[in-house]
């Protein structure tokens, strides 16, 4: 995959997003505001619990706020790069028979998936607010991060996105075999991740912590990387564990996804629904 091509396509989708912003400014602003409100609502419950109970889930309220703002920034990155065209919710495209649209384009599928979800203008509300909240939480923690720390933070955020997308794609492979039953499995993965990633896992039984950092890796989305960034990597694991996990997860996902694609090309999906296509 040519790097130049990736950037040229990202530029194209950025222009298209800008076109939408300029032509439909009112609605676009409402979307940004909507993202912001829903994200604030999503994290406020746990933050309120952290304020009420000291040492909630083994973390103080400032640490919990840091974790929540990290998660918000993570969602922001995901929204900017992968939200449009159901790129994150890939089971919808598979289940609705919409992969066929992709097969008509003279581009490799990974390149299409990597670029067509890019909406830097209409999807930036969460990332901006996430970074503002992140900055505030660092002030509360009285941390004075250096260059390397910021680099680690960026890498961690990207890895968290890669991990949740990997989980979504892994479960989405079932949509190749059962398009109707599994059309929404990706949204279920995100639903569970959104519901669980906001809880600090410190103090929970070791078995559950390990499960949530492996089988259902919601702990690797916020809890683990945040503690690692604060110098308290849990479970006695090294800070680079999320990287090793993401690599393994994607290896499994790619293997199964390719198998699913072969099944798709072999029997097709006799179902087509236009919902959400390029909308």
């Amino acid at each position, binding site marked *: 995959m040519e790097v130049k091509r990736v950037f040229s396509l990202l530029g194209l989708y950025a*222009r298209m997003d800008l076109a939408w912003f300029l032509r439909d400014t009112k609605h676009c602003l409402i979307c940004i505001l909507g993202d912001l409100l829903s994200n604030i609502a999503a994290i406020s419950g746990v933050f309120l619990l952290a304020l009420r109970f000291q040492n909630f889930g083994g973390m103080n309220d400032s640490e919990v706020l840091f974790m929540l703002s990290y998660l918000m920034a993570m969602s922001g990155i995901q929204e900017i790069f992968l939200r449009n065209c159901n790129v994150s919710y890939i089971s919808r495209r598979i289940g609705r028979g919409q992969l066929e649209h992709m*097969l008509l*384009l003279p*581009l490799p599928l990974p390149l299409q998936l990597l670029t067509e979800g890019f909406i830097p203008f209409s999807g930036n509300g969460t990332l901006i607010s996430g970074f503002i909240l992140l900055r505030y939480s660092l002030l509360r923690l009285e941390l004075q991060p250096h260059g390397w720390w910021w680099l680690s933070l960026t890498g961690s955020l990207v890895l968290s996105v890669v991990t949740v997308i990997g989980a979504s794609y892994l479960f989405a492979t079932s949509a190749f075999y059962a398009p109707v039953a599994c059309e929404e499995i990706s949204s279920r993965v995100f639903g569970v991740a959104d519901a669980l990633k906001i809880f600090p896992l410190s103090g929970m039984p070791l078995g559950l912590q390990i499960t949530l950092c492996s089988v259902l890796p919601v702990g690797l989305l916020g809890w683990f990387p945040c503690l690692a960034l604060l110098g308290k990597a849990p479970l006695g694991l090294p800070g680079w564990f999320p990287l090793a996990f993401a690599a393994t997860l994607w290896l499994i996902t790619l293997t199964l996804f390719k198998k699913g694609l072969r099944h798709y*090309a072999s029997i097709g999906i006799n179902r087509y629904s236009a919902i959400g296509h390029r909308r």
Partner: protein
Amino acid sequence: MPASASTATPPSDIAVNLEQVTKRYLQWQRSGQVSNTLKNLLRPEQRVVVALNQVSFQVRQGEFVAYAGANGAGKSTTLKILAGMLHPETGKVEVLGYDPLQQRIPLMRELGVLFGNRTELWWDLPIQSSFAWKKVIWDIPEATYQHNLEQALEMLELKPLLNTFARELSLGQRMRADLALLLLHSPKLIILDEPTLGLDVLAKRRMIDYLKQLNREKGVTVLITSHDMDDLEEMAGRLLLLSHGELAFDGTFDALRKLTTIRRHITVTTDSQVAPELERATWLRSDGFAHLYEVNSDPRNMRLLLGELAEQPGLVDIETGKAPIEAVVAELYRRWR
């Protein structure tokens, strides 16, 4: 899965080559009875559907070919195989010299595919954004893009709609915009699956005229499916007729007519509402002074019939016509059922 290899194959004058292609589907059968719940869960019944059975045909570059068949005959399966979306169980497929599965990407640069019930337009953007998007994705040179765009906008009367959101277009407008989008990269072969579906007379006419012009002037190969046989006859010089997954006919529309008992029609107008009795033609119906007959189109028979007609008193006009292709195909479908 279609791979993304980019090895190009030297072009030949064969645009589409299918050899002994077979494709079967398994369909799960589940009854709604409570007593079958366990069976449905553990050992659901399967039914094998043969979508294509040993289908072989070739389409030469520059041909305009109609691909028809009753519902479920295997048309869309063929088109999906040609577009690299499905792979055949057995047999060989070559499109513009490429293997659609292994060389999907280079093939897509030269192929245009349009499914009538789908759109490739970006829903929430004006259609010109979709055109600009296509230019980048297909790497269309500026001059080619401008030329093709101008021509498509002109021919398909899309200029006033350029700034309209795709979601706000009527079905006919959307189909025209989709066709324009399809043609921007100067495809050598276009595959159209029921492109006239739901179009009004005028919209259909515009589309047919433009497709004919493309084929005639630019030598674009066209493979088109439709259930409207009159449209197909107007456009295509050759018909491939599919029945139960098998190629039942490959030839011209006139050759198809010879397969059926439905013959040439002749309308005789007289000054009387009573239809004249003709020895060499079978009376079908009368509409006022116009009387419709079916005749054997053998030249000798036609000569004798014309002589017989010349002797008829009160003859006003004679109009001959081919047997309606819809009736011919309907009889064939019935026969093959």
